[in-house]
């Protein structure tokens, strides 16, 4: 209990202060009441499911077996050894990682170029910067639909290529593995470059002007200013954007599901699509659970490494 010197504090103020103290001690209770609904949801949707997925990954269980999952026979590490030796799992993981690297790099480079381009003022700039944002608001399935319609055998892309190359082009984009992958990456780049543009553009706008002006009076070139002043000052924003976008790109599912369904064969099957197929199409839930657990561990490890520079 804090004591107030009676000679310095009038009784009315003292009363108010002790009332405040009582309120503060009840703040704890109040705070717990406020976070309780969220805690409940987290238990229900995060903690219990995580426990179940870990348990499932150690048993052998499929819904069609006719037993309840808690009665399923133990497989111990059986599911995990199967994942480790599953070529399809590693290829799918590799594809997701590849999409993250290629798509996010392209999004960053194009986004940066656009941000620098629009950072100078010219007529119509405001409306243009708004107009190019809409792809990031679209439903992912609609983005998939867009690119599906664009790359149809007799669609506009083949037609434009025919006109440009001046010979008939009838590429079946979704039937050739590298081309199918290209369409998926293009769809992701089209949808998410606006996000990197927006974050870099607003980041550029928020930078202090003095360092750049000082460098200009000292005779620094545009490239030097960008490389040694603008880029280092933008670094925190860039890192946050890249970490968040990479985590999102790694989840890629909707666009693939709509455009190729993972095909031809398994040529565009990303890790989300593969786990979806194993768990919900083939019905091997305990095997899907083992893969899910491995992904949880993997993503946690990689994110920790990616977030480390942010903590500085």
């Amino acid at each position, binding site marked *: 209990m804090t004591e107030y010197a009676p000679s310095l504090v009038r009784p009315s103020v003292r009363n108010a202060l002790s009332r405040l103290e009582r309120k503060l001690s009840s703040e704890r209770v109040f705070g717990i009441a406020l976070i309780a609904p969220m805690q409940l949801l987290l238990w229900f*949707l995060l903690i219990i499911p995580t426990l179940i997925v870990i348990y499932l990954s150690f048993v052998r269980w499929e819904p069609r077996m006719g037993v309840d999952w808690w009665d399923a026979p133990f497989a111990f590490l059986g599911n995990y050894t199967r994942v480790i030796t599953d070529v399809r799992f590693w290829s799918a993981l590799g594809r997701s990682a590849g999409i993250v690297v290629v798509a996010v790099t392209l999004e960053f480079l194009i986004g940066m170029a656009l941000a620098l381009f629009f950072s100078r003022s010219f007529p119509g700039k405001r409306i243009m910067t708004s*107009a190019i944002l809409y792809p990031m*608001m679209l439903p992912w399935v609609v983005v998939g639909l*867009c690119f599906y319609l664009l790359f149809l055998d007799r669609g*506009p892309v083949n037609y434009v290529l025919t006109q440009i190359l001046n010979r008939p082009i009838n590429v079946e984009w979704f039937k050739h593995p590298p081309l199918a992958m290209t369409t998926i990456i293009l769809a992701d780049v089209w949808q998410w470059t606006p996000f990197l543009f927006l974050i870099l553009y607003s*980041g550029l706008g928020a930078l202090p002007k003095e360092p750049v002006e000082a460098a200009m009076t000292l005779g620094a070139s545009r490239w030097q200013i960008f490389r040694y002043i603008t880029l280092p000052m933008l670094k925190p924003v860039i890192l946050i954007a890249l970490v968040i976008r990479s985590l999102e790109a790694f989840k890629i599912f909707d666009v693939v599901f709509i455009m190729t369904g993972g095909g031809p064969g398994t040529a565009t099957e990303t890790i989300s699509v593969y786990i979806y197929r194993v768990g919900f199409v083939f019905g091997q839930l305990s095997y899907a659970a083992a893969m899910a657990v491995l992904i949880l561990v993997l993503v946690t490890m990689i994110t920790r490494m990616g977030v480390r520079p942010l903590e500085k």
Partner: protein
Amino acid sequence: MRKTNWSQALGSGIRWLIGLLICIVVMLPITWVLSISLKPPEEWVAYPPTLVPIEPTFSNYIVLFQPGNPVGGVSEMVSAAQPVTRAFVNSLIVVPIATAASVLIGFLASYATVRFQAGGATLPLFVLTTRMFPPVAFAVPLLVYFRMLNLIDTQLALILMYTGFTIAFSLWMMRGFIEGVPRHVEEAAILDGASPWRVLLTITLPLVRGGLAATGLFVFILNWTEFLLAQVFTSREAITIPVQVSHYVGAVGRFYGPMAALGIVASIPVVVAGYIIQRYLVTGFTFGLVRE
């Protein structure tokens, strides 16, 4: 002096042209979908393709909601698929309820974590883990779990999941708005003897109204566009619009017109919402880590 004016004008003219070109490239994909949605069946795969429909028609939009009606030959192809009415009703029930619940629960929790560090300093970070992993990893155990609770193919299942998986955004977006409310305003009310609930509801809440609206629209976009969980957890009764889009794309017969029309209709609400909260898009997608 005159020369610099000239080159400046030329420079901004060139910039305007390049900017326009960029806009056209970005606009083309959705323009193509819009164009197909307004074309009659003969034009869907006509070659050479035309950007502007030769005989524009709204029949693709009409058959979406009345697949029985014979509209220019489209209906036979669409009657194989379900009408989209059910998906619309489901989305219009599930998404607003889940969004309101997410924002409300997120706001309360956000207030408690900002003002009293309730749940410890790591709670907000822990909440972020719901967004870190591919949702399919949670879908596996949730399916097992929701089967036990008989929640498969129900709106309630989607409402619960959509509330839970967007709470991270609500919590983190609201943090910034709550931190913006000066503490002394609340303290003055406490000194006047107001209860903490009263302070929260009559002082803080009105001051963050704008923030609640922005967060709500952002979460609405996320929930309206969610596909994977809806695809796994619904089959007939509770399907949402994105699932309906995938049914159309996957259906035999390839009715591109209605497919495109559905894509356009599905996009309008979220694009409108997105432009209303344009200022907050960065804040939202980065969990308030980057603020404009």
